[in-house]
């Protein structure tokens, strides 16, 4: 049975010492907005002014009218006074509504801009950081802070303009109350402050326990998402998992409600304190105001005026305090965003040597005594690898799952830096290059590829301008997709995925061909193929294998595969076992050696030999 998901105390203490203070964050947001959408700031200021004028008008209207009635003015005069106030209210009310309507878009735009900045960071940051749990958490957190209208990156504007308005009004009200007894004013301020601070502290409980809350939410959201997953839907029905899923969800929902109930029971103490203090404050205010009235120093109209002012003054203090509290929370959120955006790069991105692929140069990659150990791991994934890949060589990398093949590829391509040793490109340590430039040297088809919800043409060329149509069509042809694309209503301009209404889904095999076309279009000097035919049927697979010599075309190619059959067109094969290069040579040499490679090959070929199945040894 699931238990309540309390976060440990040490984890709690690690919560927030913000890297950026709220003054800095406010300045940051304003300068962002100023650069991108100046009107946001200007509209905000205008709205604040309008709101203040509106409040003041509303404050004075009733007392002025009462004073007029008490003074028994003429009907005409009274009508004029009322008319003027009404006109002011109308104009200001209209202005406020209009400005509110306009300003929303600038705010959304800035929030989305921040979202794009976050996404850009996650798409371009140094690869080892992506695997870092810490960075992942920062990224997840930052992403959540841009995905709705109530997120801090948008809501902060409302808070700032409220704060500005309330502070200005506070100053105005203080000056209006200057004539009254200072003790009353102090009492009002003190009771309001105390009440606020107590409530605020209590209300902070939810914030302090937000990790526990998010654990519940995350699990429920996970299950809700899973229920939409149509690939999982099959498993759910076959294995009768519906009851399990619903049971888990309901029990978490129950726990969640208990958590919230507990929270509210704490919050209500804030209400109680507030009610008591309000009672005291009202007593003091009435005492003073009525005292003045009885002493003949105040008319009914003045009583109403000062009574109103005291009320708005009180709520104004409360608003200022709560605005600051909100601002602080929002500032923490902005801080989280900035922490992610400013996360330092492990690789040289712009300060290194630039490099562009040049087909006149012959590229050679050398791994010199390279060892690699993942950050949280005790054992080296790769140890003392010495490998030189000659220009134009076709190299196959084989080995069992977990042997280190992917790690080797990542080191070669510059996604990871070795823990010991160096990776050299034409005898220069790749760490000296601008990493993004270095990636230009590689075309790859990885196992987990990224198909974008854009047109087929854009997926192949990875750009939406200056497309070399001839090259693209040639690549489509080489990958075997011409017929499929010709059969689509919009041809290469057809969208893939769900973003666009005309988006289609390609089958697994078709996607692999698309990725191959993409790799070909990039036309980089080094080609990396990681299990490129795993989703293809035997005939299609054979088709592609037959093309590889052609497709590779003198480039350096590194090829990972389980299917030992496919390695035969390579110049050299290396077998990785236990983090080292176990065996190395051409296919024929390795078979002749009768070692591990020969064993693996024998096992795979077993089923294809006549009568092979029956003579198993174990």
């Amino acid at each position, binding site marked *: 049975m699931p238990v309540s998901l309390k976060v440990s105390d040490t984890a709690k203490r690690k919560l927030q010492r913000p890297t950026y203070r709220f003054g800095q964050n406010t300045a940051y947001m304003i300068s962002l907005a100023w650069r991108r959408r100046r009107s946001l700031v200007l509209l905000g200021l205008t709205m604040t002014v309008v709101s203040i004028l509106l409040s003041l008008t509303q404050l004075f209207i009733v007392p002025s009218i009462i004073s007029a009635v008490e003074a028994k003015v003429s009907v005409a005069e009274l009508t004029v006074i009322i008319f003027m106030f009404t006109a002011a209210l109308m104009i200001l009310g209209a202005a406020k509504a209009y400005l509110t309507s306009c300003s929303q878009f600038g705010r959304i735009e800035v929030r989305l801009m921040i979202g794009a900045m976050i996404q850009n960071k996650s798409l371009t940051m140094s690869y080892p950081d992506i695997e870092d749990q810490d960075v992942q958490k920062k990224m997840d957190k930052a992403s959540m802070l841009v995905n709705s209208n109530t997120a801090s990156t948008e809501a902060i504007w409302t808070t700032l303009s409220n704060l500005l308005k309330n502070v200005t009004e506070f100053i105005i009200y203080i000056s209006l109350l200057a004539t009254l007894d200072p003790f009353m004013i102090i009492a009002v301020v003190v009771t309001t402050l105390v009440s606020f601070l107590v409530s605020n502290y209590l209300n902070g409980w939810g914030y302090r326990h937000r990790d526990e809350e998010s654990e519940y939410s995350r699990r429920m959201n996970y299950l809700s998402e899973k229920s939409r997953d149509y690939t999982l839907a099959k498993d759910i029905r076959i294995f009768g998992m519906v009851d399990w899923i619903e049971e888990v969800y309901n029990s978490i929902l129950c726990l969640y409600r208990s958590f919230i109930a507990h929270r509210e029971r704490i919050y209500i103490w804030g209400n109680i304190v507030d009610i008591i203090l309000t009672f005291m404050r009202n007593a003091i205010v009435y005492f003073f105001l009525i005292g003045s009235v009885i002493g003949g120093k105040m008319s009914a109209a003045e009583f109403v005026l000062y009574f109103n002012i005291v009320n708005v003054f009180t709520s104004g203090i409360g608003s200022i305090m709560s605005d600051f509290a909100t601002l602080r929370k929002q500032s923490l959120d902005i801080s989280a965003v900035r922490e992610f955006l400013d996360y330092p790069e492990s690789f040289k991105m712009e300060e290194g040597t630039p490099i562009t692929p040049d087909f006149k140069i012959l590229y050679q990659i050398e791994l010199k005594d390279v060892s690699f150990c993942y950050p949280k791991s005790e054992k080296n994934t790769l140890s003392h690898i010495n490998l030189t890949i000659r220009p134009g060589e076709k190299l196959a990398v084989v080995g069992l799952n977990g042997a280190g093949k992917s790690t080797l590829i990542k080191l070669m391509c510059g996604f990871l830096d070795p823990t010991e040793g160096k990776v050299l490109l034409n005898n220069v340590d790749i760490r000296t290059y601008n990493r993004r430039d270095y990636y230009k040297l590689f075309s790859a088809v990885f196992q987990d590829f990224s198909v974008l919800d854009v047109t087929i043409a854009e997926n192949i060329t990875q750009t939406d301008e200056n497309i070399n149509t001839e090259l693209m069509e040639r690549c489509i042809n080489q990958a075997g997709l011409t017929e499929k694309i010709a059969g689509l209503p919009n041809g290469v301009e057809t969208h893939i995925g769900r973003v666009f209404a005309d988006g289609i889904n390609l089958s697994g*095999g078709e996607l692999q061909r698309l990725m191959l076309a993409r790799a070909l279009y990039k036309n980089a000097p080094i080609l990396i193929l990681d299990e490129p035919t795993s989703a293809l049927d035997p005939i299609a697979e054979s088709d592609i294998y037959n093309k590889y010599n052609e497709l590779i075309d003198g480039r350096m190619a590194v090829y990972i595969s389980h299917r030992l059959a496919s390695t035969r067109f390579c110049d050299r094969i290396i077998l990785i076992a236990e983090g080292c290069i176990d065996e190395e040579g051409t296919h024929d040499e390795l078979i002749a050696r009768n070692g591990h490679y020969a064993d693996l090959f024998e096992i795979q070929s077993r089923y294809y030999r006549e009568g092979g199945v029956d003579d198993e040894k174990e």
Partner: protein
Amino acid sequence: MKKSKTSVSFRETVRLTLRGCKVWWKENPRLLLSILMCGVVDALTPYVGIWLLARLIDEIAGERNSQTLMAYALALMITTAVLSMCSAGLTRWKNVQLESLWHTQNKVFMEKLLSMDFVDVDDGRVQELRSQIWQNTDSGGWGLYKLVYSFDAIIKSVISIIGAIMLSASLFLLPVKPESGKLTILNHPIFILLIVVLMLGVIFAAPWFSVKAGSYWVKCADENQLGNRLFGFWLGSLGNDRLKALDVRIYRQDILSKSNLAKYNPFIPSSKLAKASRRGMGIYHAMSGAVSQIFVGVAFIFVCLKALGGAFGVGSIVQYVSAITALSAGLSKLIEIIGDLGNNTSFLRTVFELLDVPNKMSHGDTTVNQNSSEKQKIEFRNVSFRYPGQDKYALRNVSLTFNEGQRLSVVGMNGSGKTTFIKLLCRLYDPTEGEILLNGIDIREYDYAEYMRLFSVVFQDFKLLSFELGQNIAGSMDYDSDKVSCCLRDAGFGVRQDKLPSGLSTKLYKDFDERGVNISSGEAQKIALARALYKDAPFIILDEPTAALDPIAEFEVYSEMNKIIGEKSAVFISHRLSSCRFCNDIAVFHEGNLVQLGSHDVLVNDKSGMYYKLWSAQAQYYETEGLN
């Protein structure tokens, strides 16, 4: 999916709104109750204060008796405190219900999706509906959410209106004193009518403007939805998917991302909606804001003139003005809510379109007799199948008999209908034409759950949940540990199992537990196989069961396969024709047709057949190499 912008009838609004409320009521009756009670208290509280304050001011303007003044002040203080306390208690209670609104709503849809026929879950239309409902909720709470907040607002407005009427009734009844000369005309009942008419006019005008303004959002819904989907993909799926990180960097996808986002952003100042906000929509909002003030002005004039005429004291001015403005605000709000509910109806339609998806797969009630001495036999008779919304047939005229204890291998090129075949076999879909029979009876007549129990399937795109290993294997909260262990061992997971930190309670993946384990795709495949074994069903179906395994692991699995499957019946789909060697029969599919059926030895010798083509395409790499 274009939503028709047809106007919504009042009846439909009422019907769908009530239905929506029933949904909430069923999930959590306390939700609506707490809103009701809290709303009543909150709405009435200000009136008590207004009334007492008015009396206080009257006294100040009049006698200034200190006893009376203190009495009123005390009354004000005490009632404020008491009512605040009630409100606080009820609000806290209400918050508990409101806080879980999002998850409660998700639960409703989750339950529906889980209980739907598979054919509907797989249908793009249903996915689209679910996605739209989510977007609608996200961008303004349209749909079921709105109902909750509308209910809250309606209660408050209605009570507020009642309270306001009670406090302002006397405005019209108290007469102007005869001494005030001309002002006595104000006593004429026509003024009541005038005020009421004006109030109604303004009350209808203001929300009307609001609703007109709101309708711009509906007009721009398509662009906004595109924008939402766009941002959902680029900022959501792409940015967060760590698996794609390598690809993204090699191809500099950040460049295409920037340009795409700039092109289709619906929120920049030149977009349709933003322009509307500066023009049409903005003006409607402005008018809405202005128009309500007119009424306030007129109300003031009427009240003050009457006061000038001595009908009542100065304190009452405050009371009547507050009451009338509250009345106007309440009525405005009520009209606005009704308009909102009207706008909400089209979103509710989407909600109920999803919730009303019928379970069309006829559920018979014949029990599946598993203990009969007769062998179980499944027969496909001229089965054809077409996916919903597609023109092309995925299967054509397939006839095949499959006996208990038999091993069948299903092969063919991509798209030949292999996976469709097994989906029909385990009744995830019903055939478009033809029938499938179990022991001579059409499978549609069997009890669905019982029929499902006959099959254990490992699909190519199987999924595991980020919960305990044991639970994943059993598909339920509780499980038989010994049996789970045994199945894992049979599936080849034994070695890894011993290394797990918490044994069978270890969570898979690190989503919810730092101590969870990341499993490779090969390990996942073994777990999925163990899951199929645990179910212990008479028919096992394996779709590419060793695709992610290396040669040694694959060899181990197939070696054990005989033993694991034992007496059961098995169907294999595999690209690696190696699995065909130990099946009795091989079914070869091509473009939806069953083109060949027979044993390996027979088929491989038919050099004109599809099987031979597939086989030699793979075997060619191994044929010329024997072992030395």
